[in-house]
């Protein structure tokens, strides 16, 4: 029998209010299913982090219920504390024990993410990026059925960001909830992108991935280039959707321009 797997985590009419101010989350309904990562967009202070803490089970909602949450949740807070005394190795061993997972997987994933700090020095001495990698490894090695990641790409370099994306995509049997403003999460396979506005979730059109192309000797072509174009001395910087990249490059090369750089 081909049965749709049940939604792992379901929020119904969840409300979060701080003091007497207007609610941050208002009668919010959400289902997070394995294989379909939910990506939450929203401005600063829109309640993304509150929503993620409620889903992760470390904050009680002011009203409403969360059902189907597994016992252990892999949670990465938006700002992992920088003052932890424990070395990364001990921290990851303790956290793996709490999750009931295998602590020997952590070093490999740290390598994959390009962790360059010491495993045996207090985490206070790690850089922001390296501390963030410890927090990510703690959650991603947990084998938890629910991953709640608050801005996981922040502070990561390009290689680490790519490794993180592929690792999240690989966790297909886990329900994933991500808050992300970099646009990276929207590219995850099966991602459902929602915007948190005024305490409610609404489908958001995923931002189209863009690419920046720097051309030399393209001044004569300026009238024909897209609107999002800037001139920087003898260079012309064009920003186009990824889908149009190859067409623009071959068009510009055919007209004698040089390509200096293509960057995400």
């Amino acid at each position, binding site marked *: 029998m081909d049965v749709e797997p049940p939604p792992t985590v379901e929020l119904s009419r969840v409300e979060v209010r701080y003091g007497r101010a207007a609610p941050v989350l208002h009668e919010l309904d959400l289902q997070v299913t394995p294989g379909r990562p939910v990506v939450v967009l929203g401005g600063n202070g829109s309640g993304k982090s509150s929503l993620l803490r409620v889903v992760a089970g470390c904050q009680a*909602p002011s009203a409403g219920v969360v059902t189907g949450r597994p016992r252990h949740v892999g949670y990465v807070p938006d700002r*992992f504390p920088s003052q932890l005394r424990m070395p990364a190795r001990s921290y990851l061993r303790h*956290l793996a024990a*709490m999750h009931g997972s295998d602590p020997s997987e952590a070093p490999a994933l740290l390598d994959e993410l390009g962790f360059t700090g010491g495993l045996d020095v207090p985490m206070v001495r790690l850089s922001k990026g390296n501390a963030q990698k410890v927090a990510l490894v703690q959650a991603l090695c947990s084998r938890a059925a629910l991953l709640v990641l608050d801005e996981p790409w922040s502070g990561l370099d390009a290689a680490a960001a790519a490794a993180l994306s592929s690792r999240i995509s690989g966790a297909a049997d886990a329900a994933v909830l991500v808050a992300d403003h970099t646009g990276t999460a929207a590219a995850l396979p099966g991602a459902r992108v929602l915007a948190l506005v005024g305490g409610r979730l609404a489908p958001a059109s995923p931002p189209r991935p863009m690419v920046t192309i720097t051309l030399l000797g393209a001044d004569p072509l300026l009238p024909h280039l897209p609107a999002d174009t800037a001139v920087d001395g003898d260079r012309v910087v064009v920003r186009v959707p990824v889908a149009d990249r190859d067409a623009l490059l071959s068009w510009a090369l055919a007209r004698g321009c040089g390509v200096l750089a293509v960057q995400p």
Partner: protein
Amino acid sequence: MIVARYVLADLLRSQRFIVPVFVYVATLGVLFGGDPGPAPAGWPASALILYPVSAWLAITTANSEDPVARLVTVAAAGGPAVVARGVLAACLLADVVLAAASAIRPVIPIVTHVYPYPAIALLGGGLAHLATATAGTAVGLLCARPVIERVGWSLLAAVTVVVVTGVTPWLPPVGTAVKAIETVPPDLPALAVDAAIGLAMAVVASLLSAASTMARRTPRPR
């Protein structure tokens, strides 16, 4: 207890446990230094002093982890109740160590003459200290995070509760345990009841502490 091990590892690294433990060890040194005398020697005083020391240590233990790291721990361990149990276990372990140290201190020959301490006296001394230590744990857990978030209020609340309840001789478990250990031989059944009451109080305090996380319907923004 996986969480208790983590809490203890973090606490030991923080060194914040050193001040209350040092205060207590110094107290034992004063009370039992020179010539401790026969039982109960300084036990009524040391049992009474263990009450605020244990409350202090419980607040230190509960507040030791960074609040944001605590969120990660709560998610990983399986909820606030699991973490609260781990904190309780760490506090009770400290209580047992400090109570045992107080009970056996008079029979360790340091410099002076050793008086005969029968087993019944040692057991009474241990139970009396266990009663006040576990009561201190209960007070500390109710005055620490997540119940009281700010350490200044924690201090004021704990000092108030300890002063009011510690000097009331008829009030179990602290007042009655201090009174029961003054007699020779000690009233063992009464002391056992006091220790059981203290332990029960600590367990209830831990449950209330866990419930306070989930019952706070309008938390402060973090």
